[in-house]
């Protein structure tokens, strides 16, 4: 019974670990970019501009804001051929203009729609893989929960990010069990565990107090 349990935990530790390893790499590699506020330019950033006309606009545009506005603008963006996660929409009433930021990891699109002429200028910036990793690391993030995750793929990313956390928690707990079974490694392991705890709580203490 005990051997079967050990083998089951060992196999789950291995296979769950293999599954989430690419996700862990995404989160860890992007840490260096975020901590040092730096993005490597592997390929040069490209930018293209195009115009789309005769765009449909929601009739109750003036009364909409937040998520309902984003949902109402979906057919407009579809017609303009722009897909992705829609950010905070700016409605410039005086200028009769809508500015809609749309993001796909590694690509930022700004759609500027003239409400009067129903014409849009679409500027697309290909920001590259490093920027994509940063976008994914910060998604969905803590800001604008009412408007975020309005694109299916970013909602799916949130599920994956959550799954990564839950699996990491399982892997760490199962890892402790698998280490504890190895009697020869207990002393060194306990010393390292205590050293890690001391480093962590010590640093947290001096930061907070």
């Amino acid at each position, binding site marked *: 019974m005990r051997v079967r349990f050990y083998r089951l935990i060992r196999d789950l530790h291995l296979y769950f670990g293999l599954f989430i390893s690419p*996700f862990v790499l995404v989160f*860890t590699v992007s840490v260096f970019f975020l901590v040092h506020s730096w993005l490597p330019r592997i390929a040069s950033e490209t930018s293209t501009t195009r115009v789309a006309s005769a765009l449909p606009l929601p009739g109750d545009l003036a009364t909409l804001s937040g998520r309902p506005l984003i949902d109402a603008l979906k057919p407009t963006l579809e017609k303009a051929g722009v897909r992705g996660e829609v950010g905070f929409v700016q409605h410039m009433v005086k200028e009769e203009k809508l500015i809609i930021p749309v993001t796909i990891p590694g690509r930022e699109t700004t759609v500027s729609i003239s409400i009067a002429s129903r014409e849009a200028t679409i500027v697309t910036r290909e920001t590259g893989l490093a920027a994509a990793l940063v976008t994914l690391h910060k998604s969905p993030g803590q800001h604008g929960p009412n408007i975020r995750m309005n694109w299916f793929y970013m909602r799916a990313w949130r599920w994956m990010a959550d799954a990564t956390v839950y699996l990491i928690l399982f892997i760490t707990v199962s890892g402790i069990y698998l*280490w504890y079974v190895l009697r020869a490694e207990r002393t060194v392991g306990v010393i390292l565990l205590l050293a890690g705890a001391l480093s962590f709580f010590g640093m947290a203490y001096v930061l907070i107090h």
Partner: protein
Amino acid sequence: MSLSTEPRAPGKSPNVSRFRAGFERWNRKLHFYAGLFLLFFTWLFAVSGLILNHPSWTFTEFWNNRKETNYEREITAFGPEVKGDLGQAREIMTQLGIRGEILWTTTRMDPDQFEFQVRRPGHFFFIKADLARKRATVRQAEVNLWGVIRALHTFTGVQMDDPRNSRDWALTSLWAFSMDAVAAGLIFIVLSSLYMWFELPQKRLAGAVVLGFGSLTCGLFCVGLRWLF
């Protein structure tokens, strides 16, 4: 983590060089040594990441439950050695007994009015100094443990879209360095696990399927979406 009881490829061990055998042994040992040392850091970043991804979870609310205090203090004139905004902010903080990372949020229009924020996990200081009147007003907010956990996840002292803010507190640099170390440690743990898995012939196929599925799913988000849309 250690898979020391797993059978290895038959007849392989006696032929492997001493170096390779040593490498395998140390790779396995370092895999769980690193995991044990980084355990609390990993738990912090995993749990705080989950909290950041779910701002609607009401039990993790921190800002609405903050405790605020306001006070006004006299400040003394700066000496000739105090130069620039950073120098002045540091001098005011020393006089007020405040420690933390300086956050520039407003542009200084009037040379006598000086406004800045200081943050450290769990503590927010909003400082307004009137240099002509030699008075400083401080709004201090203290947040609960959830606020501290969130802050530790993002406490780097820099922001990608704001080059004005740079690390100016030694402890922020230390924490940023520890974030780098945790990331590097986790990358090592992932790479060492891939090596250990590959050394298990009977687990290679199933592992390759799982790893391939994970890589494809992750690759869809990293590069695939740009390619598809």
